[in-house]
């Protein structure tokens, strides 16, 4: 079926089976590979993207059902400047292998935007086997301070 997807400000037309997930559409059809496939069944969070400004698991979302604009980690930064959350992840060394990082950052952006009470709880849908968890919390706190100062 024909699908129209707005991703990071660009609208793409593609033809894909109704069973194609948003994650596979992004990665295999549009070559947008920031979102990662860590489990393909909503258990790890590495595929987290924003749809209409809300975090969703791209592996559990069928591409054909997406109506609102999609933002991936690639859409947060410009060539010149990082998003405050991305900068905070760098500053706090909130990553090691980096495979979960795209999803962590998309969840962290939501944590900052929603001004969540319990950062650890909110970020617990994103697994990090390198176990950078304390640094991820520090990054969210840093980004929250940066957000407050804007």
């Amino acid at each position, binding site marked *: 079926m024909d699908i129209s997807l707005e991703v990071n400000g660009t609208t793409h037309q593609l033809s894909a089976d109704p069973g194609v997930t948003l994650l596979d559409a992004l990665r295999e059809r549009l*070559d947008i590979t920031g979102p990662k496939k860590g489990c393909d069944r909503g258990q790890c969070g590495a595929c987290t993207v924003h749809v209409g400004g809300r975090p969703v698991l791209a592996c559990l979302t069928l591409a054909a059902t997406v109506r609102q604009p999609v933002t991936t980690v690639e859409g947060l930064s410009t060539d010149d400047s990082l998003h405050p959350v991305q900068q905070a992840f760098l500053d706090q060394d909130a*990553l090691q292998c980096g495979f979960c990082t795209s999803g962590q950052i998309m969840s962290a952006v939501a944590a900052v935007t929603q001004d969540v009470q319990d950062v650890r*709880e909110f970020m617990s849908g994103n697994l990090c086997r*390198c176990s950078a968890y304390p640094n991820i919390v520090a990054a969210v706190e840093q980004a929250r301070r940066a957000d407050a100062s804007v």
Partner: protein
Amino acid sequence: MPSRLDGPLKVTGRARYGADHNFPGMVYGYVVLSTIAHGEIQAMDCTAAMSAPGVLAVYSPFDPLELRTPSTPLFGETRVPMQDKDVTHYGQPIGFVVAQTFEQARDAAMLVGVSYHARPAHTSLEDGLATAEDAPPARDGAPPTLAVLAPGVESIEDALAASPVVTEATYATTTQHHAAMEPHSAVAVWGQDGLTVYSGNQATHLQAMELAGALDVDLSRVHAVNPFVGGAFGGKARTSAPAFLAAAAARALGRPVKAALTREQVFTATAGRAATVQRISLGAATDGTLIAVRHDSWCSTDTDRSFVEQTSHVTSREWYATQNLAISQRMVPLNVPPTTFMRAPGEAPGSFALESAIDELAVALRMDPIQLRMRNNSAAPPGKDLQWSSKHLDECFQLGAARFGWANRSPHGHTDGDWLVGMGTATAMFPALRFPATVEITLRADDTAVVATSGADPGTGLLTVLALVGAESLDITPDRVTPRLGDSALPPGGLSGGSTGTASAGTAVMIAAVAVIDAVLTLASSPGAPFEGHEVLYADGRLLSDGRSMTFGELLRATGRTSISATGSSAPGEEMTKHSFASFGAQFCEVRVHKWTREIRVSRLLGVFDAGRIINDQTARSQIMGGMIWGVSAALHEGLEIEANGRPANGDFAGYLLPVNADIPDVDVHFVEYPDTLHNAVGARGVGEIGTVGMAAAVANAVHNATGIRVRRIPIVLEDLLDQPVRAPSSGSR
């Protein structure tokens, strides 16, 4: 300069991991796995799969892709899929479907019908203990059973019988899996120059060797590329099944092929950590001096007996001064997925047993567990003459005790409302190793340098270390150094494994820097060059002579060159005949156990480490912290439950529990920095694995301190604590 040089690419999604590569005409492979644990495949009906939409090929043992068993000096033979009809474990790769899209390949794979001649499967370590086999000699050549006895002592039994205080217990650790976030995957492309493979792996040069051997092509025709690896931890040392299959299928079909294991497949189609059973007897004098240490170990292994999880040989053999020592290692071959190196192989489960046993001895002696460990501090492994090159374990414990508030610990924990609070500690040790490494340094006319070796940086920080050691060795700022890693076309070195990356590649960087500085000095004074005939010195990236100076870039431009290169190689040498080498650490943990639900929460963690020189404080701290959390995970979360028929009951991320953010408190990491230049010129001993060692025992010891309940099997689950009464707290608070 960021503390992690590849950080900017990773936080923006621009770092391309293996499966992130896409090529025109690329097709998708999906691996078919066995659904029995032991037997022979009688037939595979691929008709429906072959005629499914988009399918290009279905490979099976009856119509296999041609692959040979490759062998490398480091790993020996690596199994390749589908070359016979034998099934030795559940979830073994037995087929490969290639189609135009991922979805088509997956759908068609479900249509493959397999019939088996099934045989009884042996999947229980406990059931196999009685018929266990002696393990082959350890990596250092030590026999599976050995004893070091004091003069006049006939046996370890005699030594134990003569000990005033004796403790004995049996410990068990479960099957584990690396569970790196990046599933094993590959994109394979054949061109005129041969094969290029993009696949996360711990050493591109070894991956290229294995692929060349498997495909029976010259090594020069295989190019392995993996600048980014989504976690490895030992699980991506060997080349993975999807890499072999994608490479062979891409050759057969003349199309680029992408293949990735699903998360569920990763748990059976790759290798994990063996389960262990360990029996430890300790005999001590009443002042705590160890008289006898006996540590008997059993581990599971696969039917190929491809890996032995050596628990007693890598812990009790070396950790404590004892007058008498006896260790053994046996293995139980089972119809389970292959076993392999996993972060602190041997040391992680071995330290759970030994450091729990030491804690039990401390309780029996009514002695502080730190005092007991310091009493038995070893200057050298028992029975060996080679002393530790640089050991500051006592300082780690003293500093740690002060930082953690150990003086406030009561032998019976304390309570805080409905929570029982306890503290535990454990020793951590990990050998300091090095592997041969070659590094090339290129000085360029723009006054920058490139430091290159093949290896990999699966989150370890080695890429950044190359830049830092390169800059220091070349006497220039790190921002002028471009490190390169993760490409088999580069000089072989920088394998990510054994906590060796910094010591191995770093030393080679220093040697290469001397060589390239020599080369640039020779160039400077050569005929026609700016310093012709003069004595020239090198400092700050500049050439100096007779009051004149110029940068190496200016010299290169003046001599019409764009660059100058040299390589340096390093390998373990005669230092191994002079000292024993290891890193050391003191682990501390505080747990809170709920009085009614017995929920266990880790509330504080501290590790103090003596790991030689630390090159990059932030990345080293992060790696150690991750290792410590791995120890918590082993103690309280993860374990692969293998059912009697060989199927993992919890082989996905919903069932195989890993800590999530809310499980982990702040973690305090501290280094005592004593550069160990007896081991290598850089003075660094590696931090990749030691953070994991001992932590599971520290958690279990803290649980005992809090509750009075000794759990000798990890992971500790609520039932372990619900089934027994907790010790009545002696008072309301500490």
